[in-house]
């Protein structure tokens, strides 16, 4: 795949709340991201940012329009395969009961892939959590839990990473270290990334910014163009 050809395309995507309310959450969203690109999605609360990520991960269905991954309509892909290829990190880590290792091995386990202890150890070292494999996930701090959550998604080796305000619930120190970690992992792995954020500083780190208001795209361009 050519690095300038769209990795993911959103074509006239709309999403309404279920009937009888049928209120528009997203209206005619059009954008694309290319391989290795970081796209920041900004906008006020209720603008539809999280819904957009949920549509891309197919946790929700668009009311109209279509989403293409490498030119293929995502509806043609089995949901489990799509979700493995398009990983989602949520705002809250939502770790499963059990150990850190159990959480990280969850995604690969769904495909019948067993993560060796050595691989697990090196992954944990990569995110600054050496020796955490057997720790009870319920005992982790907010920052540690979010690191495990990021690693859990990356353990699936996604081609595209969706980040739904992963640092918004963290304190300032943890926010900075998790942000640095995310950027390092994205760059090292050459991941294509869509990052929902409230922070203009985080948005400035992206290649392009998509600004939503009331479910509509009001600006789309480089950080300089959009954030000015």
């Amino acid at each position: 795949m050519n690095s300038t050809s769209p990795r993911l395309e959103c074509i006239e995507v709309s999403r309404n709340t279920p009937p009888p309310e049928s209120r528009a959450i997203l209206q005619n969203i059009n954008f694309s991201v290319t391989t290795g690109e970081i796209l920041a999605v900004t906008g006020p609360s209720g603008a539809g940012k999280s819904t957009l990520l949920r549509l891309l991960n197919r946790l929700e269905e668009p009311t109209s329009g279509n989403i293409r991954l490498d030119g293929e309509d995502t509806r043609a892909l089995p949901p489990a395969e799509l979700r493995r290829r398009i990983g989602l990190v949520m705002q809250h880590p939502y770790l499963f009961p059990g150990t850190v290792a159990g959480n990280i091995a969850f995604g690969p386990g769904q495909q019948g892939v067993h993560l060796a202890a050595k691989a697990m150890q090196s992954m944990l070292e990569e995110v600054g959590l050496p020796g955490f494999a057997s720790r009870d996930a319920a005992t982790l701090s907010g920052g540690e839990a979010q690191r495990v959550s990021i690693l859990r998604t990356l353990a699936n080796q996604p081609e595209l990473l969706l980040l739904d305000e992963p640092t918004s619930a963290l304190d300032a120190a943890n926010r900075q270290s998790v942000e640095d970690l995310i950027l390092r992992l994205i760059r090292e792995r050459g991941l294509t990334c869509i990052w929902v954020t409230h922070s203009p500083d985080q948005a400035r780190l992206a290649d392009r910014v998509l600004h939503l208001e009331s479910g509509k795209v009001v600006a789309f361009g480089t950080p300089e163009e959009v954030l000015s």
Partner: protein
Amino acid sequence: MTVAVTWPTWLTPELRTGILQCFISGLAALFVMFLARKQAPGLLREIPWAELRGLMQIVLVGLILAWLLHGPRWTSTLVLAAMVVAAASIIRQRAHKFPRTFTLALAGIGAGAGSILCLMAVTGVIPVKIAILIPVGSMVIANTMNTQALFLDRLHSEVTAHKGEIESALSLGASAQTALTPYRAAAFRASLIPALNNLRSLGIVWIPGIMAGMVLSGASPIYAALYQFVVIAVIFAAAALTCLVTSRLVLRRLFSPYDQLMLQR
């Protein structure tokens, strides 16, 4: 001077005593709910209607039973089928947060209570006599209904409380079945606790009506005890099977064909 009250002939002394007993026990339930009105707001208003409805239903069943005892045996099947439909209708009202609850409840109770009762009737464990089939069958159906209601209520609470974990599992490529498994298991376990407690406490904490009735009507106390165990074990088996069937069927009422969680709050 004493005034002699003349009662209608159909209102026998036994019936008058029964009505008085119903009135006192109904009042006791109402009084307790009055004391607990702050803990369960709104429930106090439901109690008089629930009591009246229950009383009318059971009296009607008594009349039907008195009539059926002289009728053909197949009528008991009709009565039990009507009870399953009525139980499913009650579940629909209670577990309205799930889509298509009536068919879910009907299939669950029908499969659980229906198949266990059939099995017991075919093997001769429950004699195919109207006077036995209908009371025992009604106990089995009522208990499966309660277990199913508990299961659905607990499952809804579990799914609501763990929406994030369920969607996290889905987003990592898990199937809806895998994502739901821990919460379905918790609901399954919790809903069977009353039926399991009945089995555990049999004879120690309570001596159920069937045994008491059999002993009073002259049966051997040992046989009455064994038969009471049979009834409680049948109730447990039917309740567990109902939950098992419901837990399978509920999956597609909670998730779309594309494994998206659809939950009504």
